């Protein structure tokens, strides 16, 4: 009986529903004091004076620290995505080293006090004077300064991707579709604020940190403080959501450690909700445009895809928007270009479905328009253009797109759809349906992943690796994988994680977490099983002495051989006979090489039905349906939840989420959950999730491709296409807000 693939409920569920699960700010070592950070109120300029007298005199205050007090970092940070497994600062900048201000909210003063209230009250008493300089925080302010980005993602990806002759492809097309969009900035807004508890013991530092990568945090903080990596330990029991905000290591973590060293006590920091908008990156404001050339029967002859976005003064960061548009459809001529504007913001960062959710919004709304122009069903247009290999001619590691399109359409009831816009009134509402392709690249930048498996003479077992649980269900899935690999019952094995003292595991980002952890745990469990099978075969006291190892199976800790009917041994008895209190093994999984001769995309298809009130500008999503081919599904209950959550993130991206800076101050206009809208229960329709089974030998021993992002990709496009179907109008900005949908006078509406 295998556990992988069965809908086991979360192993950490009881702790989460009873409140027993401990998140980082809930760790309070004896003597803990509290840190409050004062952020810059200007977006550019310099600090000219800091009056901290009132704060220093306030009750309970232990220290008020400025750039004069904070130590210099041992080496300047260099942005590097945490998936690479090395130090991963979120930006190539560390604050409080001098008086210069690069972005609003940049830390300028630290206040440490005995209690949370004392720290925040004293922080409110600090007076900072600035010499403000002109700031650029919007695309409109910096458009003249835009430049072509040579490399993105800390140099990992080219800023430009080109094959064939796009101009020629567009010239020979029978028709051409041009679309352009403005997309507002997004903020992750995990429900748990980023938190750090820093505890020094002599020259050794322990951090309780809300992070998606304990190892990345360990290495980054060690590098910035000039400590041996072995002197920094990072512990993360539970994380209250990440969505990319905790994928990189941001300055507040190291500042907390610095403050703790200065005051000589454990220091706790929990960022405030407003600070979350200026402390851990964001999805940058951007504009995208696309030109599709096609033959009259709907075959693509050229794609040109452009993105323009704002980055920080210190990093060439852009969410890569062309990773899917460059390879999803068979098309000889492609050009993707990222242009950047350096502005007064922190370095943007990964936000769920980084890059490709908006890139696919652009491509898939253009494909919807193309379908209308060539008079083809949008589904048929996709099927006609689907690429059977990647652009290098390599086969997909596993496919499934056609099957997802067909299954999703069948489950949604797509066939027989009247393509005419405004054809389905329902009282004051106009009903529309739309669809889009979902696809997301897999990246194998990570170093080898390790895990350890251990079994005790009483038959109980553990598997361990240094990953962390932030809602993906990794604790549950890894327990299932470990149980199957070792051959023990689920109830006899425990998965340990969330601690850099455990074997190496890279930050869980880019939908890679479950695959990496499952692969390493599988290797460790398998190695230990082999070791124990060999022990039994070589043990004259074992009923299995001398059998062929290939004949041995282990279930629920019981060893049997197909070559010797009736003979059984157990792990417990085997260890006991051999005077062993335990046995352990390490397993290593090496990711496929970067030049693997395979296309690496995960596929899916999205369908949406909306109701639009054109007089009020209201859009209600009535239902969402998705079909996905994520390879091996380790736990369908949990995978379904993650895909459903991703789809609702796509709905939110389409209709709710967007922030702008005030061009006069350079500050974000919305810095709380009353103004920055995220979905509530009443916004969320019923969601259908279906799976298409595909087998994948390339991505790891279990063939799991990940479900973290793919659920979100394509949803915003499917909703926008449904709004067009309902109203006959294409909205050219995200989010699609009521004023952009509203038709002031029905008579003026296009027909």
């Amino acid at each position: 009986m295998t556990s992988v693939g069965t809908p086991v409920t979360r192993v950490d569920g009881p702790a989460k529903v009873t409140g027993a699960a401990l998140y980082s700010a809930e760790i309070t070592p004896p003597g803990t004091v509290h840190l409050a950070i004062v952020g810059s109120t200007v977006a550019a300029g310099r600090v000219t004076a800091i009056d901290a007298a009132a704060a220093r005199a306030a009750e309970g205050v232990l220290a008020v620290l400025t750039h004069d007090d904070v130590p210099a970092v041992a080496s300047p940070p260099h942005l590097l995505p945490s998936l690479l497994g090395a130090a991963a600062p979120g930006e190539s900048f560390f604050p409080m080293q001098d008086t210069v201000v690069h972005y609003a909210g940049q830390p300028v003063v630290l206040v440490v006090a005995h209690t949370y209230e004392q720290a925040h009250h004293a922080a409110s008493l600090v007076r900072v004077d600035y010499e403000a300089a002109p700031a650029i925080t919007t695309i409109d302010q910096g458009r003249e300064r835009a430049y072509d980005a040579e490399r993105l993602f800390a140099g990992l990806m080219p800023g430009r991707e080109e094959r064939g002759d796009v101009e020629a492809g567009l010239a020979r097309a029978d028709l051409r579709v041009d679309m352009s969009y403005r997309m507002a900035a997004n903020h992750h807004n995990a429900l748990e604020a980023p938190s750090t508890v820093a505890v020094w013991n002599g020259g050794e530092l322990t951090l309780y940190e809300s992070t998606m990568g304990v190892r990345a945090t360990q290495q980054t903080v060690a590098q910035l403080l000039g400590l041996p990596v072995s002197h920094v330990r990072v512990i993360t029991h539970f994380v209250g959501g990440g969505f990319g905000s905790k994928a990189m290591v941001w300055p507040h973590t190291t500042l907390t450690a610095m403050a703790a060293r200065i005051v000589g006590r454990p220091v706790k920091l929990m960022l405030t909700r407003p600070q979350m908008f200026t402390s851990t990156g964001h999805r940058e404001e951007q504009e995208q445009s696309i030109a599709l050339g096609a033959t009259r029967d709907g075959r693509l002859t050229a794609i040109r895809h452009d993105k323009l976005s704002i980055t920080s003064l210190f990093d060439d960061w852009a969410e890569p928007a062309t990773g899917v548009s460059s390879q999803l459809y068979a098309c000889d001529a492609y050009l993707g270009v990222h242009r950047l504007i350096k502005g007064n913001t922190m370095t943007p960062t990964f936000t769920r479905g980084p890059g490709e959710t908006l890139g696919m919004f652009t491509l898939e709304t253009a494909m919807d328009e193309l379908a209308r122009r060539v008079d083809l069903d949008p589904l048929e247009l996709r099927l006609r253009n689907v690429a059977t290999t990647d652009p290098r001619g390599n086969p997909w590691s596993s496919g499934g797109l056609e099957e997802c399109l067909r299954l999703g359409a069948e489950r949604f009831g797509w066939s027989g759809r009247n393509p005419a816009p405004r054809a389905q009134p329902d009282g004051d509402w106009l009903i529309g349906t739309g669809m889009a392709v979902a696809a997301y690249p897999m990246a194998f930048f990570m170093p080898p992943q390790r895990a350890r498996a251990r079994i005790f003479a009483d038959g109980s077992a553990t598997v361990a690796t240094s990953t962390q649980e932030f809602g993906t269900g990794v604790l549950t899935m890894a327990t299932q994988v470990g149980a199957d690999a070792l051959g023990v019952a689920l109830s006899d094995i425990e998965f340990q994680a969330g601690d850099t003292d455990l074997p190496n595991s890279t930050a869980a980002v880019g939908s890679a977490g479950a695959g990496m952890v499952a692969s390493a745990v599988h290797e460790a469990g398998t190695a230990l099983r082999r070791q124990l099978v060999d022990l039994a075969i070589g043990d004259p006291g074992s009923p299995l002495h001398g059998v062929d190892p290939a004949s041995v199976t282990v279930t629920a800790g019981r060893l049997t051989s197909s070559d010797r009917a009736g003979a059984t041994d157990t792990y417990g008895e085997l260890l006991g006979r051999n005077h062993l209190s335990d046995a352990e093994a390490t397993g290593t999984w090496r990711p496929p090489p970067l030049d693997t001769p395979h296309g690496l995309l995960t596929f899916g298809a999205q369908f949406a039905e909306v109701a639009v009130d054109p007089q009020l500008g209201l859009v209600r999503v009535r239902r969402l349906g998705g079909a996905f081919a994520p390879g091996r599904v380790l736990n369908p209950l949990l995978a379904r939840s993650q895909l459903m959550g991703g789809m609702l993130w796509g709905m939110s991206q389409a209709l709710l989420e967007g922030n702008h800076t005030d061009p006069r101050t350079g500050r974000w206009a919305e810095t709380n959950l009353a103004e920055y809208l995220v979905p509530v229960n009443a916004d969320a329709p019923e969601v259908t999730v279906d799976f298409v089974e595909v087998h994948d030998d390339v991505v790891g021993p279990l063939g799991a491709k990940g479900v973290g992002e793919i659920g979100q990709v394509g949803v915003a496009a499917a909703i926008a296409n449904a709004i067009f179907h309902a109203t006959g109008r294409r909205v050219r900005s995200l989010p699609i807000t009521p004023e952009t949908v509203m038709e002031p006078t029905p008579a003026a509406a296009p027909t």
Partner: protein
Amino acid sequence: MSTTESRQDIRGPHCVPVTVEINGRGRVVDVEPRVSLLDALREHLGLTGTKKGCDQGTCGACTVWVDGRRVLACLTLAAAAAGHEVTTIEGLADGDELHPMQRAFLENDAFQCGYCTPGQIMSAVKLIEEGNATTDEDISEFMSGNICRCAAYPNIRAAVRQVRDAAGGAA
């Protein structure tokens, strides 16, 4: 204003003992009057099951019951809870026996990261008692004070329905 007066202005008020009944047990906590019920629970009483999501009354993660009514602990001063009965997520299970709503959240996978979960459950239990769980529309409307950023909303509705139906129909 003299220096002495200004120093008095900026000094925090002194701690006062606050007596509250929490999960059926009398507790005395020595806190400044400005301390919220949420911070009193989390930082002073070791009851960290109640979560701080926004500290601004917008997310519902800190939902607890005061005298049987659901309130936001971040917008309630600890001192204002003096003499009242407070119930937190830690007081819901009967020993090792989960409350039916806790079990329903687990079985319906009504959470992912788990951070909003205590607040969701404290709201959900009251929803049924209040008679606001009759239809799916009611459930989603009356649960909309509790944000779940992982967006487990359809599963949360399923969990509420399961408990409502097991309790013998809508309250």
